[in-house]
């Protein structure tokens, strides 16, 4: 690949990494500040998954530019995370619901008028 092409790939990969880190930071803030467990599980399930996917995409772009078959392993990690993180979060939420852990008052079942999160 030409010199300017490699430079462009580096810039794109850097920006993807920055976006992924920002999303991961947002998910960490959500995990810290939301009121109860069923609100808190939103943050890592969605925002942190997107953040890690963007970080992996940055690594994938870099290894695609090398022109060998090493990008397949990055793709495997991306697909694996994409399939498993929602599944494990769902299992966790189901377990917490069956155990009936403490909720803030607005998230009681049935008559929720204003969602707290």
């Amino acid at each position, binding site marked *: 690949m030409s010199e300017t092409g490699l430079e462009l790939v580096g810039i794109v990969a850097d920006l993807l990494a920055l976006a992924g880190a920002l999303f991961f930071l947002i998910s960490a803030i959500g995990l810290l500040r939301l009121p109860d467990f069923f609100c808190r599980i939103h943050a*890592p399930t969605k925002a942190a998954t997107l953040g890690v996917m963007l970080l992996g995409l940055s690594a994938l772009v870099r290894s695609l530019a090398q022109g060998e078959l090493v990008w397949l392993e990055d793709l495997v990690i991306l697909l694996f995370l994409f399939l498993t993180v929602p599944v494990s*979060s769902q299992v966790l939420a189901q377990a917490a619901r069956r155990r009936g852990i403490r909720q803030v008052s607005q998230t009681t079942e049935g008559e929720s008028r204003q969602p707290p999160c």
Partner: protein
Amino acid sequence: MSGILITSLLLIVFALLLNGIRLVRGPSDFDRLLAAETVALGLVGLLMLRAGEVDDRFYVDAALGLALFSFVGTVVFAKYLELRGDDE
């Protein structure tokens, strides 16, 4: 390493510190498990970032193994927390 890459690395480390606060403080064990899973996710992200930077394939292998163990561990531990008796 470029400046953007160092910035994103510091952002992830700061996010991991925030997750660590939740891991220590979390009122229930489910909160702690959720925070531990997020920490593992962040470590996978850090390893991917590093793998793209230094062109060393071992980082990618480590990230894949960590993702696998994090998934299996979370599912098994959630089932354990669900099924164990009321001893707390």
